[in-house]
């Protein structure tokens, strides 16, 4: 039950994009189409859960016993970058269909702050392994959810005539503001 509330909390209330602003750059970049948004979301779920498991174990069993906690940032970002690279090569070799559908989004994930945020939050909140996995899954599912909803909204806006200065990203930001308002109504749910 505790894990369920943690999951719901990270998906809906403490949403990684709409409350903490992490992972907003790719949101603006790739959400013009529903299909690319879901591709990006899936890739992010994959990477966040995988790299959370790796970084948590690394921190627990290597960095902390050796008193190298100050290397946290460098280690984590290196793990994320190489994990992304590894997944890219793995998918290219063994699951080419999925690789094709994820395409450009995989390398972009290295600079997605949501991933680094998730891995560092697992450590700073002192979660155990199960809680880390639940937290990572919650954060990434929250990301997927917002990206997908955002893309459906933007897809409809693409064909509308707008004041020229607002076309493209500015109107997307205002939509994000309204979505953040809607999500803030969920506070206190769990």
């Amino acid at each position, binding site marked *: 039950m505790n894990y369920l509330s943690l999951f719901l909390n990270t998906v809906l209330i403490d949403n990684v994009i*709409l*409350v*903490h*602003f*992490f*992972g*907003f*750059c790719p949101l*603006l*970049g790739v959400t013009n189409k529903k299909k690319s948004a879901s591709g990006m979301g899936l890739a992010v779920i994959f990477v966040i859960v995988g790299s959370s498991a790796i970084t948590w174990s690394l921190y627990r069993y290597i960095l902390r016993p050796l008193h190298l906690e*100050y*290397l946290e*940032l*460098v280690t984590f*970002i*290196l793990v994320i*970058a*190489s994990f992304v*690279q590894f997944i890219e090569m793995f998918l290219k070799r063994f699951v080419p269909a999925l690789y094709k559908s994820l395409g450009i989004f995989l*390398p972009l994930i*290295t*600079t*997605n*702050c949501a*991933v*680094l*945020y998730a891995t*560092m*939050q697992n450590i*700073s909140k002192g979660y155990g392994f199960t809680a880390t996995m639940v937290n990572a899954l919650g954060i990434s599912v929250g990301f997927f959810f917002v990206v997908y909803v955002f893309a459906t909204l933007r897809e409809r806006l693409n064909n509308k005539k707008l*004041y*020229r*200065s*607002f*076309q*493209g*990203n*500015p*109107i*997307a*930001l*205002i939509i*994000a*503001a*309204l979505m*953040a*308002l809607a999500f*803030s109504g969920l506070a206190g749910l769990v």
Partner: protein
Amino acid sequence: MKKPNFWQSLLLENPLFIQYLGVCAVLGVTTSLDNALGMSVIVLLVLLCSNVLISLLRKLIPNEVRIPVFIVVIATFVSIAEMLVKAYAPILYDNMGSFISLVVVNCIILGRAEACASKSNIADSAKDALVQGLGYAIAQFSMSIIRSFFGNGGWSLSNPFTGNQIFELTILPESLRLGFFTKAMGGFLTFGILAAIFTGYKNRWDDARKEELRQERIKAALKLKAEREAAKAAKLAEEKAKEEAEAAKNAANTAEAAA
């Protein structure tokens, strides 16, 4: 064609409002002037150091692993900055939370490393870092001025090293303040409106340049036409002169024959 001067290029190539780089950090820290100042300085310094170092190493880094190498260079500088802030400005460190570490994944720094530092010499990379860093700082200050005004009723700035207040100005009374401006929603809203203003400025600039280009083309075409006409006229005059000369020759011949 007219080139933008230094200040105009800060607006026209603004990393935040035009290129949409480094959005996450800006939305998170621009709730107060203190945080915006701290973030601007950190990003500017990290950008400068990483751009210079990557530019120095650009011939040594193999192309296939350049992104991990860039990231490690950036992460090192960010770790140094984080430790310095923690040691000398603990209040700022507490206020900014995890946003300092997340400068590592700030797209501006990696983006400039990829687009500029990995291709140009040290002086150009340093200059590019300064322009981009300043543009980012301007963007952050304009955001935090608006958000702090509506959210907190005014502005305050304190010394990041000691925590002493330098100045405070309160304009809006408590009842008129809009709390959501310091929350996520106000961040998105302010950003959207400012981005629209900057885009509008850029559109006007682009239109003016297009118009200039069109005028130049028209001028060039007119000039070409005038030249052609002149050449035609010259040719005609030449032919006429030739004809006259021939006519004169014929006349002379007939006169000779008559004689």
